[in-house]
């Protein structure tokens, strides 16, 4: 009996600690992320004063058409620093080959004006930062700690050595400290390997004078003067810069009704992007989980109380006051909450470490994620509150006046009571919540996973995108010829099965082309793709109508298009679309393209099937290759030098890796959501078990009495299952209504089959919970059942 009790106590303790720990972990991670990313200052001096200056252009309708500086505006603003700004810095981001290294690896570079270093207070491992004013700087470079380690083996004598990026040499004058944390201004994964003086930035000389060009890679950051608000700066600079810009483009009819603005965006809002929404969402979800957990644990706790009521009764008889009993009950609850708290802190610490590396590329500033002491403190308060609420639930169920009676009547009756009606409501509500949760878990999960599987669902194995590099000093024609030869050389190797001189379809934007149908003059806006003649066959896209591109025809420059199924449907069906003519410039009779084929859609995640149009050209410096076995970049390096000594591989990416990278966000969000759903489901099932346990242990003496009167185990099981099925009937109706009502919020149509599977699943799981829990109770000696107080005898 002792062992039995211990075992039972363990189920209770383990269930409570598991449930609470799980919920606490989610809460703590959510609070930690929210606090460390959203509520903590960034690791730069006066970080709240740092702003990114943006340069939006608005078209004649006032819609924002782009956000990027033109070169002259950028320089003008930098050279005429307004008084409202304490400091201004320019940065130009680029990807280049480190040609001084034998492998010529691709590195990310940043060309900055000297103020950049003081705004972000770069600490150094050695040497100095770039201090010379723009235009006066010699070609020097500051390495990141990472680059110093990986490309220069942490060489302690690195200072004053030179490195070569593409065709230019720089003298290394400094190395950043390991803990220096670079702000993400442009994209989530930019990791600058080397900082260089602004004057060597890669903006082409011919493009520099144009006031309407847009350079997405030329950015400006600044520090507001003390006491200045960013809205103020936006307003005054917008006026000033717009006047200037308008005067410079006054001769252009196209820009006649356009205007520009300057937007001073606080650094934090830039660096966090849309993640505050995600962070707050996660926090709200964790609160929901806490709610479910509280419901469940109070069920378990009530079951527990009804089992130990004899102990309570004895305490009451020997003179314990209500407050004494409450205190005696509170301490173990507090202990359980504390254990869960400790477990959760430990687990969250590990999870945060993992998230720091795993969420790079999904969350900006992921490296800053940490468990702050403030969030730990907040969780400790939540734990305290949890123990309090549980105590409250328990105390309200104890009928103190019955406690002392109970012993006199030698165990007849129960003093811990939740009315039969409330028990029924608890059972029905737990069942309904379980069915609804499982249904949506299933529904959203199936949709999300099939969505992931369908994205770029063409065969990507052993396919690579190779971008070649040749010095841009090379004459145009020679450059083209070298690029053609490079692809040809790859195609001639034994490993390579197929080559297409096109860019990878993965992660390309959805830039649309504005075309006009020649016959009807109707305007269409399909997504446009420039590919080579072999592209569609390279991806084995099924041809539905007409023919593929012919390489000879492409060489002759014939104006042909192939469209996808969705676009064909827009044009009145696959057969009708064939032979139609589309043009960018309807005025020019010779500019029209003819549709010669229709291919299947290539699904892109997060987008409905979009109309696509493919135009074939001869290709440029990028090639797609398909190989027999997995290969690496180094495989082809020597081969290319044979084609031309200066020819190098600029980038080499497997399409599978590109796909993974591209789907990273969707994948993490999907699995994160599924994890939370699964957790909620687990909690609800534990809760169901608690509800059954509680009502069954209240009914223990009834089972005993019925057995004395001749009931067999099978009779009792049948009786309880019958009641259970009545509850399920009600729960089914509630969850069906809930499912129908909530479906729109999950952006899903109500799926009867999935609902049925969820319902059947819960019916089976809950019935077996009930069954096994009941069998466990009936296994006790009959004598013990007749007198429930005997349950805790000894």
């Amino acid at each position: 009996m002792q062992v039995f009790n211990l075992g039972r106590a363990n189920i209770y303790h383990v269930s409570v600690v598991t449930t609470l720990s799980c919920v606490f972990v989610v809460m703590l991670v959510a609070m930690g992320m929210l606090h460390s990313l959203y509520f903590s200052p960034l690791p730069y001096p006066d970080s709240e004063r740092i702003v990114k200056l943006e340069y939006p252009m608005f078209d004649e309708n006032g819609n924002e058409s782009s956000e990027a500086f033109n070169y002259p505006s950028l320089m003008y603003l930098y050279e005429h620093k307004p008084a409202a700004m304490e400091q201004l810095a320019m940065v130009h981001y680029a990807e280049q080959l480190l040609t001084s290294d034998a492998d010529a690896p691709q590195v990310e570079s940043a060309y900055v004006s000297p103020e950049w270093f003081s705004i972000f207070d770069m600490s150094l491992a050695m040497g100095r930062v770039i201090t010379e004013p723009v235009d006066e700087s010699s070609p020097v470079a500051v390495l990141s700690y990472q680059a110093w380690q990986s490309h220069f083996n942490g060489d302690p004598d690195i200072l004053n050595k030179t490195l070569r990026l593409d065709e230019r040499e720089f003298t290394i004058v400094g190395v950043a400290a390991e803990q220096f944390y670079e702000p993400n201004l442009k994209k989530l994964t930019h990791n600058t390997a080397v900082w260089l003086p602004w004057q060597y930035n890669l903006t082409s000389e011919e493009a520099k004078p144009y006031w309407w060009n847009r350079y997405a890679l030329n950015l400006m950051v600044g520090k507001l003067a003390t006491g200045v608000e960013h809205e103020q700066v936006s307003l005054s600079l917008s006026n000033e810069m717009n006047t200037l810009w308008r005067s410079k483009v006054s001769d252009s009819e196209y820009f006649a009704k356009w205007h520009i603005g300057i937007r001073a965006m606080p650094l934090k809002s830039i660096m966090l992007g849309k993640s505050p929404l995600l962070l707050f969402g996660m926090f709200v979800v964790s609160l929901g989980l806490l709610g479910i957990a509280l419901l469940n644990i109070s069920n378990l706790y009530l079951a527990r109380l009804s089992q130990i009521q004899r102990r309570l009764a004895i305490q009451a008889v020997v003179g314990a006051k209500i407050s004494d009993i409450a205190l005696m009950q509170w301490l173990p609850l507090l202990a359980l909450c504390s254990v869960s708290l400790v477990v959760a802190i430990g687990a969250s610490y590990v999870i945060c470490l993992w998230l720091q590396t795993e969420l790079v590329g999904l969350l900006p500033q992921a490296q800053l994620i940490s468990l702050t002491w403030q969030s730990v403190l907040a969780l400790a308060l939540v734990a305290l509150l949890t123990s309090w609420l549980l105590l409250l639930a328990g105390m309200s169920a104890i009928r103190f006046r019955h406690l002392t009676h109970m012993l006199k009547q030698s165990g007849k009756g129960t003093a811990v009571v939740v009315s039969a009606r409330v028990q029924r409501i608890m059972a029905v509500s737990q069942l309904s919540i379980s069915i609804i949760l499982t249904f949506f878990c299933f529904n959203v999960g199936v949709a999300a996973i099939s969505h992931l599987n369908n994205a770029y669902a063409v065969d990507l194995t052993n396919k690579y995108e190779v971008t070649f590099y040749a010095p841009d000093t090379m004459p145009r024609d020679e450059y083209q010829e070298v690029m053609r030869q490079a692809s040809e050389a790859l195609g001639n190797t034994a490993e390579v099965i197929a080559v297409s001189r096109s860019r990878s379809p993965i992660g390309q934007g959805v830039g649309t082309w504005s075309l006009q149908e020649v016959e009807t003059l109707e305007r269409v806006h399909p997504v446009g793709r420039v590919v080579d003649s072999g592209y569609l066959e390279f991806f084995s896209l099924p041809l539905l109508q007409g023919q593929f591109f012919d390489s000879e025809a492409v060489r002759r420059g014939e104006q042909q298009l192939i469209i996808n199924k969705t676009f064909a449907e827009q044009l009145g069906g696959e057969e009708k679309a064939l032979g139609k003519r589309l043009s960018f410039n309807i005025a020019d009779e010779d500019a029209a393209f003819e549709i010669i084929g229709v291919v299947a859609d290539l699904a892109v995640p997060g987008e409905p099937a979009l109309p696509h149009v493919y135009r074939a050209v001869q290709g440029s410096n990028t090639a797609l290759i398909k190989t027999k076995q997995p290969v690496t970049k180094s495989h082809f390096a020597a081969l290319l030098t044979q084609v031309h000594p200066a020819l190098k591989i600029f980038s080499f990416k497997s399409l599978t890796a590109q796909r993974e990278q591209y789907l990273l966000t969707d994948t993490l969000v999907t699995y994160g959501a599924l994890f939370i759903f699964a957790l909620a489901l687990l909690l609800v099932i534990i809760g169901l078990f608690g509800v059954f346990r509680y009502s069954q242990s209240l009914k223990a003496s009834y089972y005993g009495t019925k057995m004395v009167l001749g009931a067999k185990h099978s009779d009792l099981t049948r009786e309880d299952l019958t009641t259970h099925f009545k509850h399920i009937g009600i729960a089914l109706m509630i969850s069906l209504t809930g499912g129908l009502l909530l479906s729109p919020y999950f952006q899903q149509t109500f799926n009867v089959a999935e609902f049925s599977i969820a319902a059947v699943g819960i019916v089976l799981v809950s019935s077996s919970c009930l069954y096994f829990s009941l069998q466990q109770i009936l296994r006790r000696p009959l004598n013990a059942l007749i007198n429930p107080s005997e349950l805790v005898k000894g």
Partner: protein
Amino acid sequence: MIVLKNINKVFETEELQTHALRNISLEIAKGDFISISGPSGCGKSTLLSIIGLIDQATSGSYTIGAHDVTTLTLDQAAELRNEHIGFVFQAFNLIDEISVFDNVALPLKYRPEKLSKAEVKLRVEYCLQKVGLSHRVQHKPNQLSGGQQQRVAIARALVTEPSILLVDEPTGNLDSKSGDQVMQLIAELHQQGTTVCMVTHDPRYADMAPRQVKLFDGELLGTVASAQSVSQRA
């Protein structure tokens, strides 16, 4: 009809062994009214549980009529209890959520051969009338007094027409007036032919039985046949 031979019962718990019954031999004939008395903890309830097939003896043999019931499966025990044994507990053990009628009808529900609704009604009403509670049919047990509840429990024990009525401290939870009434009822049932085996530590009530057994520390001290008639005592 009921024959116990050399019954021993040992409870084994982690720390200690309790020899609750030692070498008990006892015969109960049809129509007997036997009382088992003795100090608290001497093994009365244990003996009654064994007779009532709620518990099994550690050693010894036990027969009811022609059945050897020394060892039984749980389901066999349940069937035999339902057929032969009517139990009355100190704590009444009624089910609070169902009516007096349904409480009394409960044992009929667990019979292998089911009775028709009309038959059930007839039997239940007959038994309730026997205990004088015909007017409380639709009440819930907790709406009745203790004495009334115990009479409902007796009606429930009678409804299957058992071979023997086993009664454990029927007055333990009652005031003396209600206790007397219940004892009166039990004596009347005996006179109408019901076989009764009753446990009590109250000598006053023990004396009402024509056959009295005394237990002390798990051992039988002998059988005393009472000279007095039950009805005279009450």
